[in-house]
Every structure is written in C-alpha cells, then in structure tokens.
C-alpha cells in the first residue's frame, strides 16, 4: 500500500477519522469539500498536513463526476466514501471498478452492495437462510391500493396476535439512516402518510417506492460489526446497542457491548441472544462472500426474539464504539476499523482470526448535535462561538467544528457537531465518565435572530441512565 493516495469523498468528522487512518497506514490522501464546508476542520487539517493541493472544492458531494474528476486529477488510487453519500451506491462502486482508469472503492465489491444495499433483497436472502425478519413487504410498493391492502393485513395480524396498539411503519424504500420513516397507528391515516412518504422519497431519492412493515414496540436496536476480507476471512467485533434515538429515528447514544447482563437484568438470556445474532450475521456474510466492513442491524423484542432489519454495507458512524472495546492479541492499542477497512480493500489478509479478538470494558458514543430536542429534534442553525470539551485519556472526540474561530453551521447538511467515544472498564464507569464529560462541555453561539444556540447536551445527559437497559 506504500505511496498510495486515497481520495476521501466525504466531509466532517468521518473525513477526519479517515485522514487519521491513512496517516497511521502511511498513505497519502486528498479531500473534497463544498463552498459551504470551507471552514470545516476536515479541510483545514488536510491543508495543514498535506498542503493546499490536498483539498479540492467541488460543487456537490453527491455528484459522482466531481468525485472521479478530482480522483483522476489528484492521482488517487482509491476512494474512501465514508458513510452516507456514495458509501452504499453500487453504481458508483461499479463505475470505480470498471472505468478506464480503475480506482479501488473502499467498501465491499459492487455486487455485494447491490445485493445487500436493498433492504428488500436482504430480507429475501435472510428468509432463504431462515434468519428471522420483520413481517411486511419484501418489494417496494408503488401502488396505493396494494399498499393499503398490505397495511390492512398487518393491522389484522397484530390484532390477532393480541397486540393492543397495532401500528405499522411506512418507509422510503431508497432511504436509510432513519430518514423518511413514519408510523401509522390508525388505518384511516394510512393513505395520507403513504402519500407524504412517497413524495418525500421522490424528492430526496428520486424513487417513490415505499416499504411497509409491522412496527415493533418495546425493543432494542442492536448491531453486529463484521470485518471480512477478500480471502473469505470473517471476524466479528461484537455487538453494540443503538436503541437511544431521536424521534426521527436518528441514533444519539450507542454503547458496546449490545447487552451487559453484569450491569442490568434482561427478561431473556442476553448472552444467548447476542450469540444468535452474531451467528446469523456471519452466516449471511458467508453466503454472499462479504469482503469488507459491514454492520448487521437487528431489533430484539422483549421476548428475546431478534429480527434482522438490514445490512449497512459501509463503515458506520458508530463503528468506533465497537472498536474501542476490541483488542487483537499482540496489538498494543484497540482496533481501528477504518484502518482495517482500508487494508482489506487493498486486498490484504486480516492476519488474525476470531480467537485472537477479545473484548474489554464498555464504550459509549455520544452524538452531539445542534438540535432542539423539545421541538421534535428540530435542527438548529447559526454560528458557534465557543466549542469546548475536556480532554481525557478515556475519551476520543471527533469534530469538524474549529475550537479557535467562530463556525457557521452549514444548512445543507445535518447539524452534527461532534462525536465523543468514551471508554470505561465496565458500564458503570463508562456511564459516569460520559456524565463527567458532558457536564464539562461548553458550546456557545447564536442564530440569525440573536437567540442562543440549542444543542442536545442536556438530552444526552438525561438518557445516560437508559443506556443498555431494557
């Protein structure tokens, strides 16, 4: 991999984490940015470390021609898509592989992204392997009549199963990351919500296909972190719990491991459930010859039943919460999954097996966002004038917000400000450290009307008591 150059086709904190990984691997890199992101730390860091020629201004992160044009001009050997944008776009990955000047796409091969990138297809493959999935549509619906008939069927089934308040979820088929999902609690509101999601899907993703599935209540959202190589090696880095989410189903606090029976009681055998999920995830990965990092998303209901939700064929925001508690024997530091992802994309072997991976302590990730929790997590935009977080050996902080100059939050993107990953030798200690960290954090700023900044720091503090508890 010596002297290879990576184009980082993303922004914000993930671009910074990819830069760090490249540096540790001895790789060169270049970044892209839009005019709205000119003040982002990912641009400043790239210029400081690699010179002004390492940062390219593009029109849009979502324009593949821009990315490939810059990749060629920068002489990049590989493109790291981060998360979002092109990370799960099989057409982009295919174009990278098949163009006249091929470029390595740092992610699974395009056929895998195509097959697992679709929630519906994943559901079909899982069903064939007898992996439990949530009842609902297994193809995108475009007809309102068909959709309504299925909605009726799902309501009827829940009533039959004795569920007191049945409900269903209407999702944009092409969506992801919790966007474009609404709940229907009464059949007579279905049509209105269906149309709204259909319009949203058309506007945001250019495809008005909609999925419908039973809405599970009283569940935890878990994930299994896998790493696979091009040499059919598969290892997992355990599970994590992402149950604490905003009303728009955006994750806000994550913890690893997925359940901690030493910390709290569960109405089921937690270790057995986690093992089942890991086993199923590895089974599916093996079936499709998965060849990079990936996340298998699950929900676990109160009766201890896991259901596979989807597979995220990319590095996730919360990858480091799993990495932070994982050790590979003979390695001095915790795993860096982004480094591992880059290595396997270049065709390297893992050089370790599952038996070499051990887990230590608990890690908690806090997503610090400028949003008004009391107003339905409405995004806040304005200027940040002070951005301070305590430095501790047990916390890692990633942010695109500069600490030494005012920063205007771009309105084009989510108002995510920072990620803090906190480690403790057990869940109690991790929780207390997270509390200490939040108490000392200080973010100040104001919007265009002079109103003070609104963030979710207080909300995060409140939710720490709920971490890992059913």
């Amino acid at each position: 991999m010596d002297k290879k150059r990576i184009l980082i086709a993303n922004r914000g904190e993930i671009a910074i984490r990819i830069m760090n990984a490249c540096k540790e691997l001895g790789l060169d890199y270049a970044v892209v940015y839009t005019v709205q992101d000119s003040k982002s730390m990912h641009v400043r860091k790239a210029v400081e470390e690699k010179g002004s020629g390492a940062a390219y201004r593009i029109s849009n992160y979502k324009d593949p021609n821009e990315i490939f044009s810059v990749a060629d001009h920068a002489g990049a050997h590989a493109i790291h898509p981060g998360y979002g944008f092109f990370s799960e776009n099989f057409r982009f990955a295919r174009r990278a592989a098949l163009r006249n000047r091929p470029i390595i796409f740092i992610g699974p091969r395009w056929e895998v992204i195509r097959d697992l990138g679709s929630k519906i297809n994943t559901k079909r493959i899982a069903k064939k392997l007898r992996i439990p999935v949530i009842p609902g549509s297994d193809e995108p619906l475009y007809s309102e009549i068909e959709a309504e008939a299925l909605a009726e069927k799902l309501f009827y089934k829940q009533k039959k199963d004795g569920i007191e308040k049945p409900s269903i979820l209407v999702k944009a088929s092409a969506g992801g990351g919790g966007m474009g999902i609404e709940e229907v609690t009464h059949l007579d509101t279905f049509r209105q919500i269906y149309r709204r999601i259909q319009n949203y899907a058309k506007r945001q993703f250019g495809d008005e296909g909609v999925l419908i599935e039973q809405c599970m209540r009283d569940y935890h959202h878990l994930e299994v972190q896998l790493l696979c190589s091009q040499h059919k090696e598969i290892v997992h880095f355990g599970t994590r719990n992402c149950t604490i989410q905003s009303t728009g189903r955006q994750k806000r606090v994550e913890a690893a491991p997925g359940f901690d029976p030493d910390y709290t009681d569960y109405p089921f055998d937690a270790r057995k459930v986690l093992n089942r999920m890991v086993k199923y995830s590895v089974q599916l990965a093996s079936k499709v010859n998965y060849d990079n990092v990936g996340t298998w998303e699950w929900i676990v209901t109160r009766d201890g039943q896991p259901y596979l939700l989807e597979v995220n064929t990319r590095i996730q925001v919360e990858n480091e919460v799993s990495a932070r508690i994982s050790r590979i024997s003979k390695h001095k530091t915790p795993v860096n999954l982004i480094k591992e992802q880059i290595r396997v994309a270049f065709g390297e072997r893992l050089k370790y097996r599952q038996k070499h991976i051990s887990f230590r302590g608990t890690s908690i990730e806090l997503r610090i966002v400028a949003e008004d929790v009391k107003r339905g997590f409405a995004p806040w935009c304005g200027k940040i004038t002070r951005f301070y977080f305590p430095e501790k050996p047990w916390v890692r902080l990633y942010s695109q917000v500069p600490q030494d100059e005012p920063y205007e939050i771009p309105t084009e993107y989510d108002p995510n400000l920072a990620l803090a990953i906190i480690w403790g030798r057990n869940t109690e200690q991790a929780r207390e450290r997270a509390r200490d960290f939040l108490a000392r954090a200080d973010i100040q700023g104001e919007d265009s009307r002079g109103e003070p900044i609104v963030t979710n720091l207080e909300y995060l503090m409140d939710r720490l008591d709920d971490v890992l508890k059913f």
Partner: protein
Amino acid sequence: MDINLNDLLRKYKSHPYEDHKIDAPHTGLVFFKVRDGQEVAGPSGQWLQKPGTLLYILERENNPKRMYSAFTGRVAGLRAGLEGSFVQAGEQLLTIQHRLNRDEIIDRILRDVLQVFRAPQRARYFFTPETVTFLEKKTDKGLPIAPGDEIIIMSLMKRDSFLPYEGAPGIIYKVYFQQGDLVEQDSPLFGVCPPEKLPFVQKVIQRIRTEWDD
C-alpha cells in the same frame, strides 16, 4: 402602496446594469471561447430555445460541456490564465456586464410593489405538489393565497417542513425560485398581490413598458 415610482425609475435609468459573475459550476478543464470586452448574447427565440454565446467549454471525465451565456452584455475580467487548466467548483472565470431590459426592470420594481414572501432560512424550497399542478396550468387568475396556507416546503438539513404563508391574502403574482433551488435567507420566494391592488400593479407595468427603451 407607498412607493415612488419616479424615484425607482430614475435610479434604474442612471445605472441600468447588473454584473453577473460567471463561476465554474463544477470541476474540470476550462477552455475559453470569448475574450475580454466581447459583446455576448443571452438565449433567444420564442421559448428561449436558442442558446446564448458560447463562453467556455468545461471538460470533466472526458465530457466537454459547452457553457453558454445566460445574459446579454459585455465580457469583463476574463481570467485568461486559467486557459486549459483544471478548475475547482465555484472558481470565478469571468464577469458579464448586463444592461437590464424592460421586463427585468418590471421584475425588479415589482419586488418593491408586491408583498414578498421571503425565505426564513438558507434552504432548499419546493412548492407542494398541489401548488405545482396549479401553477403549471398557468391560468390567468393566479393562485389565491391566504394567511396560514401551506404551499411551500422548506427542505433544511434533510428535513422537510411546511411553511405557513404569513401576509395579506391575495394572488401569487410572481415566483422568484425554481423547484428545489437553494435560496439564501431573506431572498424572495414569491410575490403576492392583494386583489384590490391589482389595478395599481398593472399601472406600474404599463408605465414602465411605455417609458423604458430596451
């Protein structure tokens, strides 16, 4: 409506120009097709189907894109040093000094006359699908609007929210954005004319048409 039409007309007559900066819309290799001081034309034809003067070619991924002038005017500040080189998105390439025509003067003055509904945030804006359908019909009546009507969707930070119209009831007389445009905070989205003011607006238009020579 408390405006002094004479003052407005005098202002525009003393300086009937607007400078339009031409930036590279995306990355690529740039090849100029005009020179400094050259007069260029904007699009023409009944449906503006004939492109304006070819300003430059921007080549990206071996796809040459011909970039035509959207304005009539004179080329100024052409950055000839960029010829044949790779430019980044947003790089300023040249400026066109454009003389405002009669319709543009009407448009500018109407912004002072109509009740303008402005973008509350820098965001992308859409009319609701029902409104689009109505506007596409292009009826002479115009779209009636009353306070509280939700005809605009603001897409900010990937979230859609309906904006209730605040202002006097009337008809939407002028729309200042295209579906999905990124609109700066406080920029006009549309102009509303109360029915009783319609004769006045028409008088303004008539007067400019009579007094302004293109």
